[in-house]
């Protein structure tokens, strides 16, 4: 700064000079106004409020764990670890054990997950490779209709429609699937199930007959509910495979499926694995379909046709009529369910975050 300029600046800031508040405040008005005290206060308040809400959301997770834990505490002390290994649930005798429910939860979820993953992955591949659109394009070319504008737009529109329809599977409420399961699925699979039991009953999976509700119908409906999740996330993972890799694969002369199996699936593997884990989490927590279809029976059996129970179904079926001691036991069961699902979901989220990060390096 030159001395002259420094002098000018000092002149501005001296008392009574142009920068003196009284001088400035007495100048006239124009349209531009500094924000009022109210605006500034509102701004500070709003920003603080959003931060408080954000903190609350994190706190919410802990609150859920804490409140369920607190409810379960009396039972934890009363029943201890035996709760996890006892097999009887009898409100009249105050005897509570959730081992059948735990086994049922795992068995039905794994079964539902396996079926759901097979279909979900197949759908994800079908959608990500746009087989429908490609096939329709070939048909159009064969029929000579490829030049027609309306026909030409059809394949991609139908492809979109297909994707949306698959997503609709997830929109149907669980209780409606349960209702449908009772009146459609069970009657349909009962004859073949009982045939299998009659002829191949020595195989543990077919060890009992299917009288009504059972593990298999419940798992089938569970698979239907879980496959949209697996399909959507897997499809995202497959679509995220960088175009460079696709070009490289086809450039080497691989067929569509060789590319899919050898390159695309492995690249998307982390994302698909995350999808499966999250699907597993969903299956573990699914309540209504299982409450209505599994049979609410505290038995442990390998048989697919045996009635069974899950932790969530146990809660749903027993709570409405439960007296205080039974409610306390149910809270303990809820805590166990919370622990299982929290772990699975956290692991799944972490895997998916790693998948996203991993793909960033490939671009």
């Amino acid at each position, binding site marked *: 700064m030159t001395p002259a300029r420094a002098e000018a*600046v000092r002149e*501005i800031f001296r008392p009574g000079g142009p920068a003196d508040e009284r001088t400035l405040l007495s100048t006239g*008005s124009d*349209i531009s106004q*500094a924000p009022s005290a109210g605006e500034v206060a509102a701004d500070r308040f709003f920003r603080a409020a959003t931060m408080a809400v954000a903190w609350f959301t994190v706190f919410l997770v802990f609150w859920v764990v804490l409140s369920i834990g607190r409810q379960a505490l009396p039972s934890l002390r009363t029943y201890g670890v035996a709760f996890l290994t006892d097999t009887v649930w009898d409100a009249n005798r105050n005897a509570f054990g959730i081992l059948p429910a735990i086994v049922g939860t795992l068995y039905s979820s794994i079964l539902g997950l396996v079926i759901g993953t097979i279909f979900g992955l197949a759908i994800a591949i079908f959608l990500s490779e746009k087989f429908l659109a490609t096939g329709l394009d070939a048909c159009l070319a064969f029929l000579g209709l490829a030049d027609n504008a309306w026909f030409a737009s059809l394949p991609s529109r139908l492809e979109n429609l297909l994707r949306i329809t698959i997503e609709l599977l997830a929109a149907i409420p669980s209780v409606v699937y349960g209702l449908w399961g009772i009146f459609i699925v069970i009657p349909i699979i009962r004859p073949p199930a009982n045939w299998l039991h009659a002829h191949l009953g020595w195989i543990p999976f077919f060890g009992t007959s299917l009288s009504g509700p059972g593990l298999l119908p419940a798992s089938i409906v569970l698979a239907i509910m879980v496959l949209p999740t697996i399909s959507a996330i897997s499809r995202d993972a497959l679509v995220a495979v960088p175009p460079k890799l696709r070009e490289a694969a086809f450039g080497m002369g691989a067929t569509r499926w060789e590319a899919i199996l050898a390159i695309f699936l492995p690249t998307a593997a982390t994302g698909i694995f995350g999808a499966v884990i999250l699907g597993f989490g969903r299956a573990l927590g699914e309540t209504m379909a299982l409450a209505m279809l599994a049979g609410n029976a505290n038995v442990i059996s390998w048989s697919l046709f045996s009635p069974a129970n899950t932790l969530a179904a146990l809660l749903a079926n027993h709570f409405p009529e439960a007296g205080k001691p039974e409610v306390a036991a149910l809270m303990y069961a809820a805590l166990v369910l919370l622990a299982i699902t929290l772990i699975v979901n956290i692991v799944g989220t972490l895997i998916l975050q790693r998948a996203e990060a991993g793909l960033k390096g490939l671009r």
Partner: protein
Amino acid sequence: MGPSPATANGHAFGAHEQMPDGTLIDCNINELHYGRFKAVRDVSLKVRKGTITAFIGPSGCGKSTVLRCLNRMNDLVRGFRLRGHVIFRGQDIYASKIDPVAVRRHIGMVFQQPNPFAMSIFRNVAFGLRLNRYKGSTQEKVESALKQAALWDEVKDKLRSSALALSGGQQQRLCIARAVATEPAVLLMDEPCSALDPIATRRIEELMLELKKKYTIAIVTHNLQQAKRLADTTAFLYVDTSAGGRTGYMVEYGPTNEIFDNPREEHTKQYIRGEFS
């Protein structure tokens, strides 16, 4: 009339307050850093009332950075630090007691990419009026602003339609209308024509000559013809790579005809002659 409202910190910017020689903004930057990167050094210029001041220079010389110092838009960049003073109406706008939001109410900006809001044309132009709680007739001010931006005839029948449906050149004129609706003391323009085609550019340049009668403008441009046509005063900035980094600095500053016809510095001569730009 009456006292203008104070900022939350108790300091106000009154109506076009100026120092004796008509200076509205007296900008002195010793050093400007983004984190550890020294982006600009040694800039000293004045923006005088009723004139157009142009900042020219090659890419990366810090012209936009300097422009954005004038309305504290650089505050948005992480790690921004300024050593220097920017005196606007007798206040250093970088003093800790000054609210940058208040600064921006008085110093408007038009950006390189047209950026109208996702609202109707009317509400875009009225945005500043609403923000400043304008008590008069918004309709009149909107119409006046659109006329000043030479856009009124084209949009007067569709003021309620979406601003995003306008062409690029129209959108930029809308942004100018939006900026002048509140009659800011100074209007900053950051390469306003570089995203537009030559015809739209020409219209906006004509516009600026009209706007000069009412507003004080500081403009960054990489188009030398534009600077020569429009600006009263020009500052030429260049890049200093001597220390291994890329630091912008002001090479020369003065009346436009002197800068273009009789530059003192060698860099300026070469730039004007088009040897590098």
